[in-house]
């Protein structure tokens, strides 16, 4: 190959010779381009006189030089191409040609000259590189094989046997006999003489003669005049001219050119090409970690550090006794206190390999893999701070907190009671038909009436100028006048209930029957429709003229409104969905609350339409009361829930209290104090502070105050009805155990 390389060098030099004359032409072409640019500039200058110079686009002044560089690189490419061409031209030395020789022939098809190479025969001889040296021992000193019969190994591992070598006489004879013997040299690798080629001999001759070993080297080449000689003189090769202005000034012509384009774009003559969807190609650094907003994964827990007892030479107190050892061996591995036995070795090198290493690694891997670690965001909140700030009950006094006295109905359970408007008397009715009027403060019965059948409901008329109360029994309403009235009140009451001249009779299925004579019995009796059952609730309008009664029958005739002044009864609803449980009059507006099993509907009686439906989410409503302001309603259910509704707010409960353990039986707001109470079948009464603010922004404040226990639960029934006294924070409760208790503050 050294020969071939030398040839190549020589070739290069020749190429450079031939290139040299082409150079000036190249420069001319560059100058030409510049010229053309100048021309363009001149054109633009003529056009830019219209004064549009304001929006001058910034142009990098280095752009010119960059262009030049790129041109240069193009020039280089051109040179390479020319090289190739020249290669094809040189085929004057056939001996030194390594590569297959090419012939230039005129193509039959195109008529152009083309190069044709000889066919390559793909056998082993076609490529000398595949011709292997049989001895493959490599570059090892061959004297290693001096004593061996072979000189190496071939590619298959077979020995290459040493060729036969004659003794000195044979060599001598050979030199005598063979004329080429003196031109052969010893080939170490083959351990035999190989004849030298003519080239090698020529190199040897040249070296002997002290000449350049390269045969092609011409020490007397003619001088190449690169920059001298005829026509190549550079008169002033270095210029002292100052740098032209255009080197640093923004190009005027470029500006004009760009302004032309800008104008065209503005006039719409040039429309920008639509953005290709090349933008969708998003490039992303595949090696960079994407910024993640997730928490970094938790570091795995660190394995436990070894302790003293795990030492190879633990203190003697750590070493187990025989008993302990036996015990350790007898326990199951999962029950062992620790999974090893301390052992003592006199030296560290005596410690054997750790036998549970694999198992421990495996267990740890299992642990890491089977117990994924989550970062729990632990709320660092004081649980006490979550409890709403409620005022203490002692600051909300007065409220009933002790049982002052007890009034007992001997026989039946007391289902209903009512407190007189002045708060002095209580009337209570039991299931045996006994109605008792007694003093709130002393608990002394002053009058009793015996009716037949259960007492379903009792309500005292809220009027203060008359005094009477209504008792509901089976299909009847009885009106009674309590004793100890001033004559004026008694006369007014009497004339109201049993007037001397009856008002004109009205069409109603309900008969009003007054008995003026009997003072011991009821003075007025209303016969409700037959099969209407026991009236389970009575509700007075606050003015005391209207009385609503709810009967227990499921039929349509459940709700009646009775007007005292006209002695007239009417059914307000022709048809009503569901069984009516309770009714109530709104304290200030002509509204009427009707509670069915699930819903509370609010009707406007004046306009006779449904205003809204409250959905307490209670399965069976048992009790209901309206706040004295009329804006809030509490509803209790047999499923222990107590719902507070803000009528201005929503149809859904503002608050749901579930403090009772059994069904809620009765609820009532105190008429003047901010209190309400709920009673339940669990025998307890709960007192709540319920302050309602007049501004609509503040939520009602509900504070549980007191649980009053005193009633016994009898046959699953607890406190059946509770009533507040009007002017004092006292509560009267009637229980299924037949007792009526008064709770005082």
């Amino acid at each position, binding site marked *: 190959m050294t020969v071939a390389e030398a040839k190549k060098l020589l070739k290069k030099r020749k190429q450079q010779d031939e290139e040299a004359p082409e150079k000036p032409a190249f420069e001319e072409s560059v100058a030409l381009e510049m010229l053309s640019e100048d021309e363009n500039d001149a054109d633009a200058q003529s056009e830019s006189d219209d004064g549009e110079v304001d929006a001058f686009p910034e142009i990098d002044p280095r752009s010119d030089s960059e262009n030049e560089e790129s041109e240069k690189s193009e020039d280089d490419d051109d040179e390479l191409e020319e090289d190739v061409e020249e290669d094809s031209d040189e085929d004057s030395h056939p001996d030194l040609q390594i590569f297959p020789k090419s012939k230039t022939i005129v193509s039959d098809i195109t008529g152009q000259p083309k190069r044709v190479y000889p066919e390559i025969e793909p056998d082993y001889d076609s490529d000398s590189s595949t011709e292997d040296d049989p001895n493959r021992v490599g570059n090892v000193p061959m004297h290693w094989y001096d004593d061996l019969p072979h000189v190496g190994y071939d590619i298959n591992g077979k020995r290459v046997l040493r060729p036969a070598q004659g003794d000195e006489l044979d060599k001598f004879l050979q030199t005598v006999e063979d004329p080429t013997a003196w031109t052969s040299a010893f080939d170490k690798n083959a351990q035999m003489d190989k004849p030298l080629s003519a080239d090698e001999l020529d190199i040897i001759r040249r070296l002997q003669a002290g000449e350049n070993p390269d045969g092609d080297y011409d020490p007397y080449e003619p001088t190449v005049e690169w920059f001298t000689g005829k026509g190549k003189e550079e008169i002033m090769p270095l210029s002292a001219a100052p740098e032209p202005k255009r080197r640093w000034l923004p190009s005027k012509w470029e500006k004009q050119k760009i302004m032309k384009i800008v104008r065209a774009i503005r006039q719409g003559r040039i429309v920008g090409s639509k953005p290709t969807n090349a933008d969708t190609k998003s490039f992303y650094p595949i090696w960079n970690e994407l910024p993640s907003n997730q928490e970094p994964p938790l570091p795995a827990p660190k394995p436990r550090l070894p302790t003293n007892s795990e030492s190879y030479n633990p203190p003697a107190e750590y070493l187990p006794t025989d008993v302990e050892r036996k015990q350790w061996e007898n326990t199951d591995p999962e029950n062992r206190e620790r999974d090893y036995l301390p052992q003592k070795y006199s030296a560290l090198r005596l410690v054997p390999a750790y036998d549970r290493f694999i198992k421990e690694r495996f267990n740890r891997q299992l642990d890491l893999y089977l117990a994924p670690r989550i970062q729990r965001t632990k709320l660092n909140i004081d649980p006490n701070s979550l409890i709403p700030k409620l005022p203490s009950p002692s600051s909300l006094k007065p409220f009933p907190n002790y049982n002052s006295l007890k009034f007992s109905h001997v026989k039946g359970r007391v289902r209903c009671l009512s407190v007189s408007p002045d708060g002095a008397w209580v009337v209570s009715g039991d299931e045996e038909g006994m109605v008792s009027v007694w003093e709130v403060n002393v608990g002394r019965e002053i009058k009793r009436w015996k009716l037949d059948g259960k007492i379903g409901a009792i309500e005292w008329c809220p009027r203060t100028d008359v005094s009477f109360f209504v008792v509901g029994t089976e299909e009847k309403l009885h009106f009674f006048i309590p*004793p100890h009235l001033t004559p004026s009140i008694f006369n007014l009451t009497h004339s109201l209930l049993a007037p001397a001249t009856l008002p004109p009779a009205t069409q109603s299925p309900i008969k009003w029957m007054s008995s003026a004579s009997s003072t011991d019995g009821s003075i007025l009796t209303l016969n409700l429709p037959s099969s209407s059952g026991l009236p389970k609730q009575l509700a007075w309008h606050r003015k005391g003229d209207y009385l609503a009664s709810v009967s227990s029958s499921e039929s349509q005739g459940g709700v009646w409104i009775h007007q005292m002044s006209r002695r007239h009864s009417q059914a307000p609803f022709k048809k009503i969905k569901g069984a009516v449980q309770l009714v109530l009059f709104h304290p200030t507006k002509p509204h009427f609350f009707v509670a069915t099993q699930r819903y509370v509907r609010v009707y406007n009686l004046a306009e006779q339409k449904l205003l809204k439906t409250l959905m307490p989410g209670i399965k069976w409503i048992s009790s209901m009361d309206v706040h004295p302001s009329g804006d809030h309603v509490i509803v209790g259910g047999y499923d222990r829930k107590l719902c507070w509704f803000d009528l201005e707010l929503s149809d859904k409960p503002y608050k749901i209290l579930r403090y009772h353990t059994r069904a809620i039986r009765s609820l009532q707001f105190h008429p003047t104090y901010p209190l309400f109470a709920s009673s339940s079948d669990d025998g307890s009464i709960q007192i709540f502070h319920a302050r309602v603010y007049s501004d609509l922004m503040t939520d009602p404040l509900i504070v549980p105050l007191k649980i009053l226990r005193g009633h016994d639960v009898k046959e699953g029934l607890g406190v059946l009805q509770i009533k507040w006294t009007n002017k004092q924070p006292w509560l009267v409760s009637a229980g299924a155990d037949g007792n009526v208790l008064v709770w005082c503050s």
Partner: protein
Amino acid sequence: MATHPVIFTTKTPYALPSQKFLIPIQWKRYQLSQLINKALSLPNPIPFDFLVRGSDILRGSLGEWTTANGVGEEDTLEIEYFESILPPQRMSTLPHEDWVSSISSQIPQHLLTASYDGHIRLFDYSQAVVADIPTHAAAITSICSIPPVSSPNSSESDLDSEDRQTFTIASASHDLTARLTKISLPLSSHSQKATFQSLATLHLHTLPLSSITADSTGTHLLTASWDGLVGFWDTQVPDQDDGIPASLLGNGEDASSQPKKKRRVAADITGETKLRRKAPLTVFKSHTNRVSKALFGAENGSGNGKAYSCGFDSTVRTWDVEMGVCVDTITASKKPFLDLALTPDARTALAASTDRTVTIYDLRASSLTTSAGALQHPTTVSCIALPTSAHAPSPSATAKAANLDADPGIANHDATISQNQFVTGAYDGIARVWDLRSMRAAVAVCRVWEGKKKILSVDWARGGAGSGTNGMVSVGGEGGVEIWRVG
């Protein structure tokens, strides 16, 4: 043995020489009492109670008291002693068919009870019913006996017949009226029956009455009612019916059956004499709610010419009787008052309220001052009574009473039951005797009717004639009447 320096003082006649004693600190009341008895070498042992530093009655040992109150060992304790109240003993029971709403022991040797069945009953100390007077058709809520008027006129009327002792009794009822009834008792023997006569009805109130009281001179009455009015009446029985508004009388309803019955009953009671109707002299109007008690201040001291009332509107009001105006108001916070009592010097008012306390008010201070203290009870306190002596007997009354007055035992007894003690009755059936100087717990306790029935009224009479030196607490209520010996 650790000792403590102590100085004993007393207001009783059993005074020790004033010197410092070193008392072992583990001594209790019993040892101290024995010490005094032995030091004075009294013939009959008298139990004493000990009031340490004028504030606490000694209940445990002296050492316990000093540690509890943080008194150093060197400090000298001043201990006042007085004759202790013996554990009360039940003397007798007077069964009633109905609840007893009011009880009075102001008539000497007799006990006056008012019941819910409308009857006034008079018992003597042999537990015999002297008189059973069906006065009202409705329940009687309060009763008092009017002290005999010392004017010669009335004394003459009292002396209408020899051998007879007459009293006037005022009763207030649920039937909106109060009544004056005159009872005359045979003095000497029980062969003669007691006679009674209804004198007048008092018409003012439109709601049931809650109390009626007379002043000490027997000339005026005060009624309190649920309608918030306090009526001020004189005790004169008018010759003519006073002008009563028709709305109070109900002239139209006489035809109905109930008043007719009542009228018939009244006619039975009154016999031939006509029942006069009285109108009040003055009406005190300031209470906004039920008035539960109204009473006169004592005629001596600052209480003269004053009346006091308490009500459900949480106020205790002081009235100028002459002017008929409220001169002072003590406003408590949410304490509907049930009963009121005044100490004899009219300096302190005791008011029982429904919040289970008896509150002590100083009447001398302005109305802005808060209460001086409160006595906690487990249940509602219904009534308060201070020890009172019976009315000074009328001139015609027994010489025996006069002899009793002269008896030194009585005088001793007056010292025993000091002004600082009173009794309260509560709904848990326990009458408690309190000492104003030690307000933590009751001094003595009377458990009436096994503690199951309500006490509605108590009265405390100083030394009754027949019972030696002992005071007598009579308790009326749901179970009738019980009489206890206290002190």
